[in-house]
């Protein structure tokens, strides 16, 4: 499982398949199966930060796909953030735990009882020196997060392009 620069390449779909748009990440990973080189690992995550950290910790490149909430972007908007390029974490965040494009990866202050998110996984990995060599975040702006398996129309319409962008990133770093 080595990428062009050596080391593992992994694509991780984050989300819950029964929470409508939140299932976008896993759905992209399912669409990638059989369409990316064998050296690209495909994985799912519920976003729990310690497992997410351990999934990407020894990867040369990790590409994470997740639904995004908060911010001003219209539903279906696609985002791409390369983590090493993001400034150090800051406290300001429209939606804690979720990366918002164009803004720093959020710091985490788990003031609630659960649900440490992707932002926490990144910061915890940073503190514990377990970030992958390159971490690329792909997000789709969601709007429906209730129970169900159907995407909102905006997210459904964006899935092909989101998948294509993730695939393009995976191919660009794959050794095959």
């Amino acid at each position: 499982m080595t990428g062009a620069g050596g080391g593992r390449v992994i694509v991780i779909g984050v989300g819950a398949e029964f929470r409508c748009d939140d299932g976008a990440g896993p759905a992209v990973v399912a669409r990638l199966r059989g369409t990316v080189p064998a050296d690209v690992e495909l994985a799912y995550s519920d976003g729990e930060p310690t497992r997410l950290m351990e999934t990407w910790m020894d990867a040369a490149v990790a590409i994470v796909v997740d639904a995004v909430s908060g911010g001003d972007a219209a539903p279906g908007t696609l985002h791409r953030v390369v983590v090493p390029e993001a400034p150090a974490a800051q406290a300001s965040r429209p939606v804690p735990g979720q990366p918002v494009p164009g803004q720093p990866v959020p710091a985490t202050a788990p003031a609630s009882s659960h649900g440490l998110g992707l932002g926490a996984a990144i910061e915890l990995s940073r503190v514990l020196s377990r970030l992958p060599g390159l971490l690329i975040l792909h997000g789709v702006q969601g709007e429906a997060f209730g129970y169900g398996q159907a995407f909102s129309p905006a997210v459904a319409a964006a899935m092909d392009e989101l998948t294509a962008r993730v695939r393009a990133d995976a191919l660009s770093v794959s050794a095959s």
Partner: protein
Amino acid sequence: MTHRHERTLATAGIARVEGEGSLYLRVSGDQVDEVRLDIYEPPRFFEAFLRGRSYREPPDITARICGICPVAYQTSAALAIEAACGVQVDGPLADLRRLLYCGEWVASHSLHIYLLHAPDFLGYPGGIELARDQRAIVERGLRLRRAGNAIMETIGGRAIHPVNFRIGGFYSAPAQADLSRLADQLEAALDDALETVRWVAGFDFPELTVQHEMLALSQPGSYPIERGSLVSTGGRAFSAAEFEQQVIEEQVPHSTALHARLAGSEGTYLTGPLARYTLNSRWLPPRAAAAAAAAGLGDSCRNPFRSIVVRAVEVVCAIEEAIRLIMAYEPPSIPSVDVVARAATGHGVSEAPRGVLYQRYELDSAGTVVSARIVPPTSQNQAAIERDLRQFVQVRLDLADEQLARQCEQAIRSYDPCISCATHFLDLHVDRT
């Protein structure tokens, strides 16, 4: 009241998905009038989604309700459906289920102790800040969590939504060599677990004694995990089949969520680590019992803040149990027993890390699910948490809003409510008039 204004004091949290979960306090003068905690959305969607499915599907579907405790959902579902079909899974297969469940306890409790609860006692905003300052301690927690995940991966096929679990047992039983490798990891984890108990026992705990009736499973001869009947500190004793006669869920005026109470009682009740420990501490295995005693836990524990000590003791218990089960393991002759569908209703209960998780399934003769009912621990505890918060807030009304918000969040966190699977955002609203 001539006027009222509402101030949003804190918008804190964590969001896989935004928009759910809030604590609302209404205060008149020096009196707390109302405490409303909207933290839990019962999995009604899944109850509807399960109707019309094959009786073999619920363990796989319900495992997706919660990434933190999939084994609890799988186990209660399987017990209920097997009971409906007149089958009891026993012997080595039941031992494997207990072993799998031990993994979930270790992984779930370790996450809560190290990254969510301990920072509150040590003055850190969260686990990341704790890791920054005390890396070795957080690394110990991560090793423990990894040990729990390793059990789940070995028995269940993977840690999230284990795929090897099925009605009647497992799709395949692990080889002895696989479990032997686990044993080495668990021996090291046991040292980490014992050190964890010593660590958390030294924290300063706010005074809070709750008087709720406590409800937990009982598995005489062992600490209850993967099955059992129900007992309470009020002297109740009943089977899973009697759960819905004994536990009444009803609408209350101030909340959109159903509140649970025990039949014949107006009072709230509590399930989870405090209840488990209080009702079953005598059944702890030796190392866990010794650790509990050294940590100053008596036979019972009624301070929610000290639940972190109970969880740490339960991690020791789960690892001890896992090692015992692995040492005694002989691969079963078949990985699962036949479960033939019939028209009947079955009930299942198990001890999720957060407390009693009940499920009921009604099947038709073809094995199609006619109806399903899921009662998770957090929905049972919601009324008790609200009642305790009222007591907690009442003596802290002189605090500034921000400080009050922070302390309420800490108090809520000590119950480890299951927010991750249903509620993702905690807002605090205080009306002071």
